[in-house]
């Protein structure tokens, strides 16, 4: 039990996927202008992250590892994630049009999201069991959501702030991201 708790705390706060490991920066900056959009993106990423984490672990454990093909990890995982996103998109479109519309453009974007690939590879590196893989993936998804929601909240307020002309838009967003990342450094002594 304690092990799982440590995985959760470390994934959400200490080694937050965005703010400590600097993965998934693209949606972090791209889809954080509005709170509603960032929630949609977080939902889509969480969904794919957990699914992809589980499937890549299964493929690695039962196919690549027994055959001694560990070096194919990266390319195989990209293949899996890309197909998975396509598949999920089709299924959602058919069975849950409201959810498909809500996630909409975000789903295809996740195909090349490095946060998803990153978590899948960390899962393997840490030699987790299936249970731990699930918990670890979910925690990282929660960490991603946390970072995105915090960022979009700040950026919504920045809209009204008196930002110097040359710093408006992306520059101030990057500064904000840097400050948030430094703030998250404070969690590093937690475990």
């Amino acid at each position: 039990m304690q092990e799982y708790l440590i995985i959760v705390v470390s994934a959400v706060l200490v080694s937050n996927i965005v703010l400590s490991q600097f993965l998934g920066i693209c949606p972090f900056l791209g889809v954080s202008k509005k709170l509603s959009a960032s929630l949609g993106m977080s939902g889509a990423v969480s969904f794919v992250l957990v699914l992809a984490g589980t499937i890549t672990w299964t493929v690695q454990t039962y196919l690549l590892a027994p055959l001694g093909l560990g070096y194919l990890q990266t390319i195989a995982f990209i293949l899996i994630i890309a197909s998975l996103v396509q598949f999920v998109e089709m299924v959602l479109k058919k069975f849950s049009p409201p959810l498909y519309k809500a996630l909409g453009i975000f789903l295809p974007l996740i195909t090349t999201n490095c946060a998803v690939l990153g978590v899948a590879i960390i899962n393997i590196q840490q030699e987790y069991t299936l249970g731990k893989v699930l918990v670890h993936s979910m925690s990282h998804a929660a960490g991603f959501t946390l970072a995105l929601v915090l960022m979009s909240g700040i950026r919504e307020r920045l809209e009204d702030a008196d930002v110097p002309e040359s710093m408006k838009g992306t520059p101030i967003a990057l500064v904000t991201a840097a400050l948030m990342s430094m703030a998250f450094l404070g969690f590093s002594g937690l475990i």
Partner: protein
Amino acid sequence: MLFAVLCLAGLGVVFGIILGVAAKKFAVEVDPRVEELMKVMPGANCGACGLPGCGGFAEALVEGTVKPSACSPGGASLQEKIAAILGTEVSTYEERQVAQLLCQGGIGHSKMLFRYQGISDCRAALASFKGQKACDFGCVMQGSCSKACPFGAIQMGADGLPVVDYYLCTGCNKCVVECPQQILKLVGVSHLVNVRCVNTEKGKDAKGKCSVACIKCKICEKNCPEDAVHVIESGNGTVALIDYEKCTNCGICAAKCPTKSIDKIPPISEEVVLEVGETPAAGCPSCGICKAA
């Protein structure tokens, strides 16, 4: 090496088959009418219909959530094509609408409390003491509507008020949404008489703040032969308002109004005019974008 190739190829084939089967099994049928509609759209993607581009408009048409007349660049000819594709009757052609400014209190008419020198934006101007004018209802003269207009139909006049070029205006509603005072209104081109004041304060207070304000004297109401104009309750007070259904553009109210807060404009043509003496080429949707640019 062989194993690696086989393994990866195997994975690829398996996923390919899964996706192929899924694409067939989970296929969602797209209405073929949407594609046909896309072919007849003006393709300007101007957003005048209030939907994201011509594609969004075509989808909404098939769903029936929008009227064919919502496309102002397309005009009557597009409505006929849409009706042919959707198999519906051509609805009565709705006349072109243009934006009308319901305020005449420019510099010289309206009393100013101070000089605003902040950001040139109506919302920003309103944030400091409800704007520089004594009147809290009228135009704040910072030109947010002019900036919002995608067709360049709104220019700021010498008296500080925006002037709408009725020939360029496509009735896209963007300025109406942008105006924080909500004093821009879409009015059909056949309606020439407008009450250009929305001040609901008592006559004396309104007159003290602006020389062209509605003073609620009801002279318009008494003189109207069609019973089309009334001083009605609005907000915390009253203000004159014309019922466009009844108004016949006779202009008596405009002539009798003691403060000239009602005015009658010269007739506006039904179609968007490009240049005087110039006939649009075949296929031109008359959207006015070229002239604005």
